[in-house]
Each structure stands twice: as C-alpha cells, then as structure tokens.
C-alpha cells in the first residue's frame, strides 16, 4: 500500500469551486468591489476559509455530519428553464398575497406577483435593494446574523447577492402575506443556491412572511439560506418556514431575529421532506416585554435527517418565550433538537418555556434532543421538557376496540400529534395545504 498525500479530495473540490466562484463574481463587479458591503462579503469569505466546513467534532454539529453534503460538485449559478407551467402543480389552492419565486437562488420577476402597495411594504430582490435601499441594507445587513463562528453563515454572507429585501414602514400593517418560494431545479444538474434575505419591520408594523423551499428533480442540491429579521418596538411578525425538498437535497437555513421592546415574533417551522436539513432559529430578545413563539414539526422518513437548533437569548427583563417542537420519525430517519435558552443577568422576570416531543415509529430511527438552559438571572420562570417515545399503545387499542383498523388508528394518532403544531399556522390556505401533505405522508 502506497502512502501518497491525498490531493483534490472532494471536500476541497467544493471549497475550491466556491472560492473560484467568488473570484469570478468579483470580476463581474467593476467598481462595486470597493463598496463597504462587498468588504463584508470578503471578510465573510475569509472567515469561511479559516473555519472550513464543520465536522462532527464541532459541538454544534455533533449529530449532523455534513461530509456527504460537501462531497458533491454543485453548480453555483445554474440557470433554470423552469416555466410557470412547471410551477402550476406546486400552487397552493386559495392562497392570495404576494408570491415571489426564486429559482436556483435567483429572483424570477416573470413568475412572481407583488400585490401589496409600496406604501404598505417595500419588497425588492436583494440585488436591487443593494442600490435602491443601500442605507437600510448598510444598517442591518450582516449586523443581525453574525458569521464569526458559523461557516455556513459566513459562506452565505460571502455570496449574498440574491434573495429578498422586505421593509415594512413604521405603523403599517401588511394585509396580504408575503410568500417567498425558493425553488431548486435539480432536474438536470446538481445545484447550489444561497438565498440571503433581509426583513426589516418598523415600529408598530405588522407582517406575515412565509419562506418555502421546494426541490424538483433527482440530482443533488445544496441550499444555504440566511434570513435576518429586525423587529422594531411594538412590531408583530408572523414567520413560517416550510421545507418540502427531496432525499437528495441538503438544506442549511439560518433565521436570525432581533426583537425590540413590546414586539412579537411568532414562528412555525415545518419540515416535510429533505435528505439533510439543518435549521437554525436564533432570536435575541433585545427589549422588554417581548414575546417570541416558536413552533416546529418534522416528519422524516427513509434516511432523512432533520436537525433543529434554536436559540432564545433573553437579553432584557420582562420578556416571554415559548417553544414547542414535535417530531414523528419513521424508518431509518434521524432527528436532532437542540434548544438553547440564555437568560442574561439583566433579564429578570423572564418567562421561558421549551418543549420537544417526539414519536419514534421504528427501532431504526433515532432522535437526539438536547435542551440547554443557561440562566444568569435569579427571578425567572423557565421550564423545559423533552419526550421521545412510541405511539400510545393504550390509545391505539382504544381506537381499535371501536372498530378503527390498526393502520388507520396509527395514522389518526400521528396526525393528531402533528396537528398540535399545524394549528399554529394562522394562514388558512397554507395550513390546509400542509395538513393535506402531512396526512399523505403519515398515511400508512
């Protein structure tokens, strides 16, 4: 056996491809490379180069191995021939509102419709916002989502060109929801996309936003999304994330939220399908009397892997956070829930609740849960609890004794378990659509 140094291992290949991609994009930029924003991209790239992709030795990635994810030759800017007809089957019935399509990371004006008046909300492709809303972008971009310790956030920041910019002026209520549909067209090539979103919700403003991810085709895909959300005082934000990807898709998504006094952030993350999914939902309660609600549902089967990392950082007194994540794991799937709650020394009178409940239907499925509470204030109410178990046998027998066949009884029980989270989705057409998808996936 010869002992030659390994060159061009696939891991370095994807990295090289990314670095080359970055240089290529710089060449197309002309003068823009000198802009302050691009300096942030450069710094982020440097951080990414230093950090490299995380390994399972990294505490935050202990149960989520990205080796196979970064082992593939993704096309960084893959054009797509997708048309409105291709998207027709993906439409959600009865859904009205602003619907924006991004295909392989790029905004598609031809497929999108923006119905809300600009007096209510400014919705722009991120690329356009860089010039048209440069002040707001400069004020918040990369200020909410820190990339210093996070290779994927750094990578996304380095490639922050496409995505959406949403700004709700003070006092405005956006009546129609804003639906962001990120479509990955992996029908003919392996694709990588890195959407970057910036959402600024002004004082006493209100908005509902949905981020939905969908992959088409059997080739591998890699999505590395970062969304920054600024919630000004007295603002109210509903934020939903829905993932329905393929077994060949890898999704890493970070949503970083900063809330000010008296604001409300209400979120639900529903993972229907995806070969590898890692969601980071990080909320800093940087104000008093804030409320943060986090709901999550994941129903992996096959060899799917779903990892939800959440962080609530109570930085100021008198705020409330509540979290409920539920999972149903079938076959050989794996799940991870890591929920951190920080209560800073200043954050007296904090109320923080966390719960993660799982049903594991197969002996080959695994769920890893890790609640982490770090409490530095003494006058707080915090609770957490995780459960992982099988379906309730007593309930199954009860249902069967009334004539409901076993398989159907199981499906009913699982659906009821999931419904706990589904009912938290307040946009009716989306909830109804998702209930249908969940019911279909859970049907035995």
């Amino acid at each position: 056996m010869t002992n030659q140094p390994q060159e061009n291992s696939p891991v370095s290949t994807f990295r090289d491809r990314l670095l080359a991609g970055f240089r290529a994009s710089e060449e197309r930029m002309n003068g823009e490379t000198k802009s302050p924003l691009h300096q942030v991209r450069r710094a982020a790239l440097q951080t990414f180069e230093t950090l490299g992709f995380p390994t399972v030795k990294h505490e935050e990635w202990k149960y989520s191995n990205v080796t196979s994810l970064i082992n593939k030759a993704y096309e960084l800017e893959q054009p797509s021939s997708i048309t409105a007809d291709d998207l027709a089957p993906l439409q959600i019935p009865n859904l009205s509102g602003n619907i924006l399509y991004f295909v392989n990371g790029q905004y598609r004006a031809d497929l999108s419709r923006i119905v809300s008046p600009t007096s209510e909300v400014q919705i722009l492709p991120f690329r356009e916002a860089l010039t048209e809303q440069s002040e707001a972008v400069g004020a918040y971009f990369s200020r909410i989502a820190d990339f210093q310790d996070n290779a994927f956030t750094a990578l996304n920041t380095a490639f922050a060109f496409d995505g959406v910019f949403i700004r709700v002026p003070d006092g405005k209520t956006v009546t129609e929801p804003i639906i962001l549909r990120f479509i990955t067209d992996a029908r003919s090539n392996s694709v990588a996309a890195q959407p970057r979103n910036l959402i600024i919700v002004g004082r006493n403003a209100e908005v509902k936003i949905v981020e939905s991810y969908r992959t088409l085709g059997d080739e591998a895909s890699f999505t590395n999304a970062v969304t920054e959300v600024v919630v000004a005082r007295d603002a109210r934000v509903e934020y939903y994330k829905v993932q329905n990807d393929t077994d060949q898709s890898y999704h890493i998504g970070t949503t970083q939220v900063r809330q000010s006094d008296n604001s409300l952030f209400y979120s639900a993350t529903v993972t229907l399908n995806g070969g590898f999914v890692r969601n980071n939902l990080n909320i800093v309660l940087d104000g008093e009397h804030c409320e943060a609600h986090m709901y999550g549902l994941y129903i992996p089967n096959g060899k799917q892997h779903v990892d939800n990392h959440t962080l609530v950082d109570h930085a100021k007194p008198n705020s409330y956070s509540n979290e409920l994540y539920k999972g149903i794991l079938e076959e050989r799937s794996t799940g991870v829930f890591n929920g951190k709650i920080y209560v800073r020394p200043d954050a007296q009178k904090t109320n923080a609740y966390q719960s993660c409940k799982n049903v594991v239907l197969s002996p080959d499925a695994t769920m890893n849960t890790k609640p982490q509470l770090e409490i530095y204030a003494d006058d707080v109410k915090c609770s957490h609890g995780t459960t992982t178990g099988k379906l309730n046998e007593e309930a199954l027998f009860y249902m069967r004794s009334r004539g409901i066949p076993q398989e159907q009884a199981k499906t009913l029980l699982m659906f009821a378990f999931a419904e706990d989270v589904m009912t938290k989705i307040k946009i009716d057409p989306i909830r109804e659509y998702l209930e249908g998808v969940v019911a279909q996936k859970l049907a035995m």
Partner: protein
Amino acid sequence: MLTISDLQANIGEKQILKGINLTVKAGEVHAIMGPNGSGKSTLASVLAGREDYDVTGGSVDFEGKDLLDMAAEVRAAEGIFLAFQYPVEIPGVSTTNFLKTAMNEIRKYRGQDSLDAVQFLRLMKEKMKLVNIDQSLLSRALNEGFSGGEKKRNEIFQMAMLEPKLAILDETDSGLDIDALRIVAEGVNALRSPERATILVTHYQRLLDYIVPDYVHVLYKGRIVKSGPKELAFELEEKGYDWIKAEVEEAGV
C-alpha cells in the same frame, strides 16, 4: 351468542384466567363480580382483543365465529363493545371525528354505505339525549380533560352510537356519583333488547340496583366459582366475598 369454554390467559408468565366457562344468550344481562385481582377486567380485555394478554387455552365462540382469531377492530365490527374502566384520553382527535371514523369503518366491514354528515349528526343528537351529554364535550379532544363521570358517559354514548350486539362494561360504575351512575344505567337500560346482551363487570352491587342482571357470576382466582340469580348480588353486598373465598378454600381448589 357467546360461549366461553375453559378460557385461560396469562400476562407474561402469570396465569390470570384459569379456565372460564360462561354462556351468554341474546337478551341476557350477566353481572360478573368478584374481589379485586380476581381476573374480572382481564376477562373483559381478553374478550375485546387486548394484546397484552396471551390466551393459553380454551375457546370463545361469538355467533358461530372464533372470537379469539379476530383482531380487536374486527371484533368491534362483529358487534362487540368494551366500555373501558379507564377511557383513554386522545389529544387532537375529537369524539365526533373519532366516532364518525369508527362507525364508517364498521359499516364498511358490514358492507353498508358510509353515513353522510347529516345522517351522522342526526343520529348523534338522538343518542346524546340518552346519556345527557353535551355537544360541546363531543367536539373537544376525546376524553381529554373530561371528568370521571363525563368519560363514563362518553363510553355509554359511544356504545349507543355503535349499537353493539354484546356490550361489556368494565367497572363502569367505579368513581361515579349517584347521579352519574343513574344516567349511565339509564343509557344501558335503554339499549337492552332481545337481540342484545350485556356483561357487567363490577366490584359492587350498587350498579345492579339500576341495571338488573339475569345472572350473577362470582369470579375468584381466575375461575367462576359461583353463579346464581340476581339475588346472589344482594348476598354478596351483605356478606362480602369472604364466605365465597372460604367455600373455595374448603373445596380445595
């Protein structure tokens, strides 16, 4: 209707039923009494098809079919109903939705058409009166947060909806105050008919003041050690179970 012959059942290694013989004909009400731990609830569970028990011997014939060969849901479709001693709370499933699913599955098994929403609601309204149960309770998650009395009334309500041939009531009287007991008993009595039979499993004679049985059986240590007319229940109420235990020990069983 039901013929139980030498039925033996274990839970794990422990034998609970040691050879039960019992015949129930259509139109009859049988009370099964006995001290705690005698095997009463086990018998009810084995008849309903609970899989925690291993049937190690004997047979059960229900209307000419081998009951022990059927899955729990098939037994229900064939007309067996067990009112649970401890009805299970099922979050997220409303009683209404649950019962509609159950009824239509049973109808499917019997080759009947599904009930539509209107037919189902009409039937529900009719049966609700029987046990004095409120509509709002039925739209809530099944048994979740129900009081003991509400749970038992819900059991009888479900029984009224499903109209079983053989109803088995497992300690339905336990934990009920006298008013709730009367309501439950009235519900059961309303369902009595020449085509149907009932097995009442109970520790106390109290329920039998309201539902008068045709036969009373005493179960002790996994066997029926004494059977008699309804008067046997009064005797048990007066003298307790000790004299029966003594009789059994004396006989050297």
